[in-house]
């Protein structure tokens, strides 16, 4: 027994010493530089994260093909936060402590961003999010925060205009899933629609039965419903709405803009109006899209934006920047001509010159609506 105890004590001592002498966070990286990606890679929202990760992987592969011998790790450092703030919280410090991670594409979701950004700020780790659209995020990430898309301050009004463009006298019912993203987006839709909003309901993530919400929608005599939330629940909701006999317009934001939404809702998804500050990869560059598929990665929503974000970081590394601070300075001050737009960040890390696009589901496919540059309306 004594032996066992002393063995345990020795092990504890060794581990303790190892931890004590381990290099402090932010120390210079001795190996290859790593580009990280953070977003949901497992969990019900994983489809979106995988779209984005594929964009980063493809950008990295193209960069290394063109710059053989660059001091960059060919594997993306994957951070799976499941899109969930509760999961992101404990992971962020580990990512920040990886000294070779010099740049991060993500986090994908606004809620997870809110808990991760302060950690990355104190570690000086620069980030470019391809899809977190909550307008308040700059205050969490400050100097290290950059966003490759327009915020919900733009998307909400664009979605509102899209609904009204389909029906001038639209009366709209608002439903959100109580997530940070959904509440923020709904607020901006609400403000733009003003007097047209005839009712609201909140259906927290995990709701499977929408009976009461649908009864409310019917009683409100709404001609359109705007669902603010993510695709897996949006599909369940729109299916029950159509099964109840309702034929009103269904509209939603970028959380729903995913092939999985159409796959899950099938016929009920027909005619759904969706907005996103994103440009489909196939539209941005059909040639690269083909090349990407050939390389084994499927592009989806936000692949273009992730691809651009990763390339901006790789530009910085190519220009001779090898640590977090100098890479952050590079992306904050220089610009990058990407596929979706030219990335040039203002003092808050927000991008200029971007658009919100509108889509409609037709015959099981996402089709851009004719006037789909909604910011220009």
């Amino acid at each position, binding site marked *: 027994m004594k032996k066992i105890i002393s063995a345990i004590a020795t092990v504890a001592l060794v581990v303790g010493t190892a931890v004590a002498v381990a290099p402090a966070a932010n120390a210079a990286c001795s190996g290859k530089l790593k580009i990280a990606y953070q977003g949901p890679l497992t969990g*019900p929202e994983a489809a979106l994260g995988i779209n984005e990760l594929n964009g980063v992987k493809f950008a990295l592969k193209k960069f290394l093909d063109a710059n053989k011998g660059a001091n960059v790790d060919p594997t993306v450092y994957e951070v799976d936060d499941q899109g969930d703030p509760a999961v992101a919280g404990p992971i962020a410090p580990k990512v920040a402590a990886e000294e070779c991670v010099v740049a991060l594409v993500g986090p994908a979701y606004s809620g997870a961003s809110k808990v991760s950004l302060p950690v990355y700020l104190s570690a000086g780790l620069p980030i470019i999010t391809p899809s977190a659209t909550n307008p308040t995020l700059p205050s969490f990430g400050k100097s290290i925060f950059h966003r490759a898309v327009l915020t919900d301050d733009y998307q909400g009004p664009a979605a509102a205009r899209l609904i009204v463009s389909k029906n001038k006298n639209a009366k709209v019912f608002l439903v959100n899933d109580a997530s940070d993203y959904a509440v923020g987006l709904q607020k901006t839709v609400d403000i733009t629609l003003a007097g047209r909003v005839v009712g609201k309901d909140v259906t*927290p993530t995990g709701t*499977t039965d929408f*009976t009461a*919400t649908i*009864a*409310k929608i019917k009683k409100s005599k709404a001609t359109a419903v705007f669902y603010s939330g993510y695709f*897996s629940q949006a599909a369940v909701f729109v299916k029950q709405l159509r099964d109840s006999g309702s034929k009103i317009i269904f509209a939603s934001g970028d959380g729903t803009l995913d092939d999985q939404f159409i796959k899950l809702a*099938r016929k009920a998804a027909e005619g759904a109006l969706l907005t996103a500050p994103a440009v489909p990869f196939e539209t941005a560059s059909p040639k690269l899209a083909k090349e990407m598929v050939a390389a084994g990665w499927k592009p989806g929503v936000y692949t273009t934006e992730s691809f651009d974000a990763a390339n901006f970081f790789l530009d910085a590394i190519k220009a001779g920047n090898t640590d977090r601070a100098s890479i952050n300075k590079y992306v904050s001050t220089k610009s990058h001509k990407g596929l979706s737009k030219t990335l040039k960040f203002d003092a808050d890390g927000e991008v200029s010159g971007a658009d919100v696009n509108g889509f409609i589901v037709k015959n099981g496919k996402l089709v851009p609506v004719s006037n789909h540059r909604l910011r220009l309306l």
Partner: protein
Amino acid sequence: MDFALLHDAFWGLTFDGLALGAIYALISLGYTLVYGVLRLINFAHSEVFMIGTFSALVASGIMGVKVEDDPRTGWNMIFTLLICLVAAMLASGITAVLVEIVAYRRLRQRGATKLATLISAIGVSISLVELFRIITDSLPREFPRIMDKTFLFSYAGADIRNDKVIVIIAAGLMMFALERFISKSRYGKGIRAVSMDENTATLMGVNINKVITVTFLAGGLMAGAAAFFYILVYENTSFKVGFFLGISAFTAAVLGGIGNLKGALFGGFVLGILETYTSAVFGTAWKAVISFLILVLVLLIKPTGLFGESIQQARV
């Protein structure tokens, strides 16, 4: 607060609440049966339900139903639906029995504490959820529409839809069959005997392991039926489908008096209707708050639930 909606759409909400409640009631029977016999909360029961939904899905695939197909009609439809129902019930029943053999039997025979068994139950539940998360790539799955959804008739503004009518009637029949089984059959008597007094029952020659296996099987079959009805109405499932429904069904069992069959039935229907009403009046976000507040109030006044706590009282 919107009491006007409850007033205007009362019958519609009640009908939808009944259909939801029927599913809760079928699941809660499994919790209540096991508790009645073993005095154990089978936390893996929600996963027994989850496996039922996936089995119905697999069965529909084997029957050649594709998601893009038009709904089937006539005998073809009835046959396909029955196969899916039987597949879900069998899979859930077998899972429940296996869970008992793997996770509980050894512990019980070695006289482990109730807490050890409880942790074992939670462990099984987490393993099964994670297993299905990995198998399904964390993505929800859709169930094809085998039966067209139509409105049978309208009563006082309530549109009565065929699938929900089937759920309410079929669930009622299943419960009746289970009740007959418990009160009349040889094994049913065994279950009641063990739930009254395990030692005396053993002395009287009741094979306790067999009785426990039958208990888990019966609970599993009911959960499988619930899984089929759920997927028929809501047409989707995911690895975490059991979590929310399991909590609701467990609540229903406690509300009615856990260990009591009639209580579980009543609790299920009451909770289904209550959730629908509170969603309508206070908003869907308040559903859980109000429902659980009512549960706490009921338990404050009657700690053993509405119908008291034991299976032997379930005799009609």
